């Protein structure tokens, strides 16, 4: 997106030149404008001065007010593109979402062997399987501690591991959705700039000067539902992910414009709609992440976490994770 501002400036230049050409004013080849035949260029000063008097000011350019008015018409254009030069880019979230994969693998007991958002397979953690079979290993363990282990730990372990796995998958889905969204933002804003420039170039074509801006940001993020294990009751949770294909669900903004102000107005409209899609899509992603966070916070014991064993509070160094 490094040349996005260059393109914005080109849009301004083309639009100004088009508007001025309608007034019979053309570039003079030196960065200024002239109206051929409208007036004879006058020298900067009449060539003489009254003794003791400063030279008279050069004559005002009679077309300057028209030029100023036209230039002001497009003053806002570079500013419309500027936020897109520093916003996140497609790929910025790639490392984070890839980094979530080992977390999923560690939390996969094998009961769920694929990412519930993307449906990609996840290699299970064989150590978690051992917990299900540990009972036979401790057959000879009796007493209150043994029954507490089974009641508070072993019997809920699978639910907790699966719930944490799903929570991690939802977070990974949010990161992938962010990546997909910002990738489309970059593509969409480039297309708006390129097609606006093209439409300004094609304005004298005999046919109707039509153009389409395809907005794909909203379509880049799909909604899905994941189901949490909760004993007999299953809790469905909304999640988001990156769309596998977005072409069919893109929003096409179709316009035509036979003058520069109209073409640029449609461009402003498209950028406004693109920004709205970003806000709406970010809201959907944030809601999925926040809902999962709220669910974890409000969930009862044995859904996302197990009861903290009393031993952890006892003296003897068992209170730490290393204990």
């Amino acid at each position, binding site marked *: 997106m490094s040349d996005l501002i*260059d*393109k914005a400036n*080109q849009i301004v230049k083309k639009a100004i030149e088009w508007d001025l050409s*309608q007034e019979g004013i053309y570039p003079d080849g030196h960065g200024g404008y002239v109206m051929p035949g409208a007036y004879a260029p006058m020298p900067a000063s009449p060539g003489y001065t009254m003794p003791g008097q400063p030279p008279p000011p050069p004559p005002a350019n009679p077309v300057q007010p028209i030029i100023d008015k036209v230039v002001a018409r497009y003053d806002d254009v570079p500013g419309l593109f500027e936020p897109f030069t520093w916003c996140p880019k497609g790929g910025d979230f790639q490392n984070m979402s890839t980094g979530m994969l080992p977390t999923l693998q560690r939390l996969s007991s094998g009961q769920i062997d694929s990412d519930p958002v993307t449906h990609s397979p996840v290699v299970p953690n064989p150590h978690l399987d051992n917990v299900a079979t540990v009972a036979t290993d401790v057959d000879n363990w009796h007493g209150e501690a043994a029954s507490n282990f089974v009641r508070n730990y072993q019997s809920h372990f699978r639910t907790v591991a699966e719930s944490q796995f799903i929570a991690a998958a939802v977070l990974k889905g949010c990161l992938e959705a962010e990546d997909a969204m910002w990738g489309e933002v970059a593509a969409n804003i480039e297309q708006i700039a*390129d*097609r606006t*420039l*093209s*439409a*300004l*170039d*094609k*304005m*004298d*074509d*005999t*046919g*109707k000067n*039509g*153009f*389409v801006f395809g907005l794909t940001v909203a379509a880049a993020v799909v909604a899905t539902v994941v189901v949490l294990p909760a004993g007999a009751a299953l809790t469905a949770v909304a999640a988001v992910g990156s769309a596998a294909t977005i072409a069919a669900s893109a929003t*096409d903004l*179709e*316009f*035509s414009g*036979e*003058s520069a102000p*109209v073409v640029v107005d449609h461009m402003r409209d498209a950028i406004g709609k693109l920004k709205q899609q970003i806000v709406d899509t970010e809201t959907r992603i944030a809601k999925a992440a926040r809902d999962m966070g709220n669910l974890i916070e409000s969930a009862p014991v044995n859904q996302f976490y197990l009861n903290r064993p009393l031993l952890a509070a006892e003296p003897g160094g068992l209170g730490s994770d290393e204990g």
Partner: protein
Amino acid sequence: MSSPLGRAIEAMHVSATTPNGQVVGEVTGWYDVRITFADGYPERVGEAELALQVQRLARLLFAARMSAYHAIVEEHLPQPVLPVTDQDRAYEADVERLESTGQSGDGSVRISGIAMTQWAVHIRPGLTDGVGGARVAELVTEAANAFVRDRVAGVRRLKNLHYVVG
């Protein structure tokens, strides 16, 4: 900096040749027209037949140019199917009646056309004997480019009339 569409059209080059192979026309970029004749052809056929062949070439060259142009537009600025308004109908009716003309600097060659379908080419009798076939080709080229400029300006006037001012 041109647009992606502008760059593609600036690089566009199309050509057409009359069925007898004696008159060749080229369009480079947006509107730069060049017309050439086979060696000795103008001298052999005379101005009336030459004008007829240029007229024939105009149709072929325009068709070739529009075909290449539309392919480029489709690639870089896909056209939506928009509803046709009364404004569009009025503009199109005027475009179909738009007459354009162009002539060489010395007035010896004149090209006129209505809606890029009905063409008329006039070459001053005796011109070839006076200036030679190569110079006639240059004068036809001058007239063709003047014609295109007039056509583009006419289209713009109509667009302004129907879409900008109106």
